[in-house]
């Protein structure tokens, strides 16, 4: 047997940190709070590193059972942790990026109220996220799943005195409930289907089955419901609406939870369930279609946003769409690869955006920025790296992972590829738009008076500064962030450059080591799958083996596609340069010439309004009229009120017997005695 890895310590360490800071942190100094939070998240990271080194020598997945949890008949769910290549990658991303963001938060949140509360929540999030990643069954995963939702809610509403933040937290929580509903039903169906929620047992029971190519069987239904859960957590159509609003939270939270880790839980879950999805081609197709639509939809919205964090938020939704495309075409390792690189560069972009916001005293509207290039050089250079990485410029991380997804998408259907390519162009365009608007040209801030007249001021969250917890003003001096914030930026920038090199595809002379590393997770069942289905049809995703068996023509096609996607990124760069650097008046003319369509995009296609009309208002009306007035007031309350009223009436009528007149009591006694005697006499004479 392999040596004990003590996996349980990994999630428990941040939990201890959360407990210490949450219970007694209020009395600590800021240094002590930061020390506790960093110590425990750092310890978790070190532990993950040591586990990673020791795990690399293991061949088989490692399971560690802590205690029995639920044992009901044949069904069994334990507190057990499961370590394979997939969870190891997730562990490294969560603890590594998490630690960097903890460090950054010390600087970013230093002047905020509730410092201890923030770090307690952040550590609590780490605990739940690590539980989610390490769980060996769906039920324990669900605990983590709900827990990260809770932490997300708490952190979005961190500045809870601000109304918009509080309602954004509620929105995230409620929208996630819808997804969780689907997830739960999927779990029930899985118990019905396999009698277990354990990943390995499900693999064993589902593995031998052949794909449900004709019609929708139970596995298809399970897959679709799992996708509903994933869409809720990972902000896909139709449940993406909470993520942009979640930007009300502090920026490090946006970076950690709403870009790097939590929102990728859906992708992780779908990848973890790949055995089910591979046998449910219809569900897999739905995953791909949802991903494709989301990636395009969110990218177009991102083009028109003016709030720096909202652009990044829609960009996150769009990039998550890419990951779902990859899952949908069966390229799970490509999805995880993009998940990892995305965690690096999107975490970097959010942190850098936070640094920009910090520098300009809480301003988030990009139209009030500009010319910051020389004033905050560290932020500028790291953000530049992030921007080039997400735009897919080689040889940065985003290029390799995005290209891998596009190539796999092309192998399944050129439609996915074409939309993905167009989105890559849009991604490049809106990211360079952000870059040019923020760092180039003249500084446009400082003119506070003209701010209200701006037509779109309502969409930019300029009330952020008015909030009780908004970053403290710095006397208008634009300044670089402290070192504690810059260091995580630099580390993430390095990772954004080099992170992709572990997955260089074969066509570019690399060995795609990342896919080989993840191979045992996805390949074990995939090989059985392809044996049973020799001719991979349209519905079944083609499974390219990790041995690089594609032919020379395939390789040249892949190279050509790579060239096209790089070209798309460069066109995006060029267009952004033209519109936002060379000729800043042009965007307004284009916007006015587009008219109604532009307005629709600026208003995010009126999706929030549509949902409000279709779901929220009828629900509130139904709750008020039927549930509140009808059921609660007229049935439940009425039953209680009427019974009390009835008791009152009865007492009122018999109260008169108790007159307080002694002789009347004596009379009642005499009458009673007479009655008893009469009864006895009557009984005796009968």
């Amino acid at each position: 047997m392999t040596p004990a890895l003590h996996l349980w310590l990994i999630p428990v360490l941040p939990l201890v940190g959360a407990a210490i800071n949450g219970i007694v942190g209020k009395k600590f100094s800021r240094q002590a709070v930061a020390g506790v939070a960093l110590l425990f998240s750092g310890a978790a990271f070190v532990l993950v590193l040591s586990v990673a080194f020791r795990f690399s020598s293991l061949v088989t997945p490692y399971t560690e059972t802590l205690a029995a949890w639920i044992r009901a008949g044949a069904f069994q769910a334990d507190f057990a942790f499961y370590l394979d290549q997939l969870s190891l990658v997730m562990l490294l991303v969560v603890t590594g990026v998490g630690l960097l963001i903890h460090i950054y938060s010390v600087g970013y949140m230093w002047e905020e109220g509730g410092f201890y509360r923030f770090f307690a929540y952040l550590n609590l999030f780490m605990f739940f996220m690590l539980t989610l990643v390490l769980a060996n069954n769906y039920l324990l995963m669900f605990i983590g799943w709900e827990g990260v939702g809770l932490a997300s809610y708490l952190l979005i509403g961190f500045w809870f005195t601000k109304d918009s933040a509080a309602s954004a937290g509620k929105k995230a929580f409620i929208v996630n409930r819808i997804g969780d509903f689907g997830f739960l039903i999927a779990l029930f169906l899985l118990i019905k289907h396999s009698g277990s929620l354990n990943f390995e047992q499900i693999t064993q029971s589902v593995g031998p089955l052949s794909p449900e190519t004709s019609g929708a069987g139970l596995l298809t239904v399970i897959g679709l419901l799992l996708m509903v859960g994933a869409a809720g957590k990972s902000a896909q159509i139709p449940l993406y609406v909470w993520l942009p609003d979640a930007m009300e939270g502090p920026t490090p939270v946006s970076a950690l939870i709403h870009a790097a880790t939590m929102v990728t839980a859906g992708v992780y879950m779908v990848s973890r369930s790949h055995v089910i999805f591979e046998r449910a081609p219809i569900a897999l197709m739905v995953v791909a279609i949802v991903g494709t639509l989301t990636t395009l939809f969110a990218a177009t919205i991102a083009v028109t946003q003016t709030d720096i964090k909202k652009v990044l938020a829609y960009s996150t939704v769009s990039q998550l769409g890419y990951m779902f495309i990859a899952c949908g075409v069966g390229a799970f390792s490509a999805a995880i690869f993009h998940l990892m690189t995305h965690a690096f560069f999107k975490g970097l972009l959010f942190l850098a955006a936070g640094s920009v916001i910090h520098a300009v005293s809480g301003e988030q509207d990009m139209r009030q920025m500009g010319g910051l290039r020389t004033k905050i050089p560290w932020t500028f250079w790291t953000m530049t790296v992030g921007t080039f990485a997400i735009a897919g410029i080689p040889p940065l991380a985003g290029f390799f992972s995005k290209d891998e997804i596009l190539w796999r998408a092309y192998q399944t259907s050129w439609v996915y590829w074409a939309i993905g390519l167009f989105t890559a162009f849009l991604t490049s365009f809106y990211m360079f738009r952000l870059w040019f608007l923020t760092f180039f040209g003249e500084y446009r801030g400082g003119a506070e008076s003209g701010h209200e007249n701006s037509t779109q001021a309502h969409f930019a969250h300029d009330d952020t500064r008015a909030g009780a917890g908004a970053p403290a003003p710095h006397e208008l001096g634009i300044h670089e962030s402290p070192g504690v914030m810059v260091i995580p930026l630099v580390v993430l920038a390095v990772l954004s450059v080099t992170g992709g090199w572990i997955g260089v595809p074969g066509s570019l002379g690399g060995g795609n080591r990342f896919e080989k590393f993840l191979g045992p997770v996805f390949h074990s069942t995939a090989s059985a799958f392809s044996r049973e289905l020799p001719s991979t049809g349209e519905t079944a995703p083609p499974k390219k083996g990790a041995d690089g068996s594609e032919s020379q023509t395939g390789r040249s096609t892949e190279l050509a596609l790579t060239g096209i996607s790089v070209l798309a990124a460069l066109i995006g760069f060029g267009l952004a340069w033209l519109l936002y650097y060379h000729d800043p008046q042009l965007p307004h003319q284009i916007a006015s010439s587009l008219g109604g369509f532009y307005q629709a995009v600026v208003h995010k296609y009126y999706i929030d309004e549509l949902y409000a009309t279709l779901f929220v208002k009828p629900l509130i009306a139904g709750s008020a009229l039927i549930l509140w007035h009808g059921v609660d007031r007229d049935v439940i309350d009425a039953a209680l009120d009427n019974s009390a009223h009835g008791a009152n009436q009865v007492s009122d009528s018999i109260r008169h017997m108790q007159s307080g007149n002694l002789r009347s009591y004596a009379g009642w006694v005499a009458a009673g005695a007479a009655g008893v005697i009469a009864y006895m006499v009557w009984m005796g004479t009968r």
Partner: protein
Amino acid sequence: MVPISYYLILSGILFACGVTGFLIKRNIISIFMSIELMLNGVNLSFVAFAAQWHALSGQVFVFFVMVVAAAEAAVGLAIIISVYRTRETLNVDQVDLLKL
């Protein structure tokens, strides 16, 4: 020999008189005397049965009742005097401080 039913009827009449007096009289001393009347009505039926069945227990009971009645009279009259001193009335309808 006088049949027992005569005694019992007299006893019932005495008891009924006591009850009626208790219910309709307002003077506290009259009520007190009505109670004594009820007790003695019962005593009469005790001794009547004792004579009928030639058993002594009925007569013993009567002695007990008389002892209790004497004690009760002592306590009761003390209460009546105390009430009269504080309230200067013997009308029970006016002794109603405990009434709500």
